[in-house]
């Protein structure tokens, strides 16, 4: 499974991105990601989830591309419009990206 994750926007607007291959992750980490992907119904989400009206300012924007076997999907989501079911996956990927920065 390949995952591309990118975050832009926010007050500091410093891009954060990571490319992951499940082969390079621990078995436990890969299992947890798969679980979060399923719980989010990731492959059935629309391609773009925008912020609602009057959503404020300085929110993050995320881009995600996941390829798992013959399943593949890309998603753009604004933090202000994020479904709760997607939140654990985004938080997990954000932590992985932040920990691997540098």
């Amino acid at each position, binding site marked *: 499974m390949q995952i591309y994750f990118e975050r832009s926007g*926010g007050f*500091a607007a410093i891009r954060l991105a990571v490319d992951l291959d499940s082969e390079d992750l621990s078995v436990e980490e890969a299992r947890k990601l798969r679980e979060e992907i399923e719980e989010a119904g990731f492959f059935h989400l629309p391609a773009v989830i925008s912020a609602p009206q009057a959503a404020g300012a*300085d929110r993050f924007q995320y881009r995600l591309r996941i390829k798992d076997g013959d399943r593949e999907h890309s998603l753009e989501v604004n933090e202000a419009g994020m479904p709760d079911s997607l939140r654990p996956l985004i938080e997990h990927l954000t*932590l992985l990206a932040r920990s691997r920065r540098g």
Partner: protein
Amino acid sequence: MSHRACSTHSLLQPQRCPLHCILPPYMLRNIAERGTAEQQAKALRSLQVTDDLHEKRRAIAKGVEPSQARAVGEKQRLVYDAEFGFSLPGRLVRSEGGAPTGDPAADEAYDGAGETYDLYRQVYERNSIDGQGLQLISTVHYQRGYDNAFWNGQQMVYGDGDEDLPESMRLFNRFTIAVDIIGHELTHGVTQYEANLNYSYQSGALNESMSDVFGSLVKQRQRSQTAAEADWIIGEGLFTPNVNGVGIRSMKEPGTAYNDPVLGRDPQPGHMNDYVNTPNDNGGVHINSGIPNRAFVITALELGGYAWEKAGRIWYVTLRDKLRSNSNFNDAARLTFETAGELYGVGSLEQQAVRMGWLEVGIEIDGGGGSENPGCLPALLNLFRPQAGGRK
């Protein structure tokens, strides 16, 4: 003043005054800006009476006398703790007048909201985010490892940066650490209630720039710094010592705030020649804001003294009265120039400073000092000048 005859009527027996309470305020504002001198004067009177009536109606709705309504419309801060979750607003930890909590994030959010309120109230005579004393709600300790601060349409929210990572890996401190970040977030609220600039591309970059401008003015006023003394850095102290940078943005020299092997380089342009076209960051709203930011700094440096007094007033009045949700950089240049003419006189040094500010970032303002649309102030002045002829 000549509107006295109409403003003394009681709510129960409204006196009939032409225009009053019939046209919606936005239409009156249009007339006040674009009508003949007589129409402008009438529209202005109506706007004043309408504002008066609105206040009385609000007071009646609350069951209190207008004088009391004013009294409660003062600074009203509430600080909450999200306890590292994402539910807002969280648990209340400090309200207006309450003792310090001892938690730096909560106390900085409280103090910074107060400094920002004071700038708007004491300098620009604005009562809070909505101009009507709206409560200033802040939440701190939002999520874990949350390296951001935002305005969600109703309140300010602050993360703790990289508190969840080992110290050697941390890049961000808590987001309440710099008062200009607090001023920045609160100003997003002001913008929402005024120009309501669309949060994408140029209008979004103007929205961002307004937040940096007034955020920086909060900091400068707190430190009693003139435009020349100010560092014009946004987010000073937000980076940990692991980062090679002085802050998140430099309003004076966009693109120079940080240059770091991990974070990369500050991407802000300071001139239209370097405008960045990107779909990221809502069309580069935090990137291209460097251009109007620098126009403001140059204007303020040209004028000298405290930047919040003249440059800040020109920008504030433009944000409040002139910019629209789809305004772009050219509109902002033209309208700040127009406002400077109204506040300080056509052809004044102030107006020339505004022209210079925008010119330095590659935006030329058409016209030689006059303006096609003289706006409200000349009409207001006409009220006191009986001989002054109307505009043809």
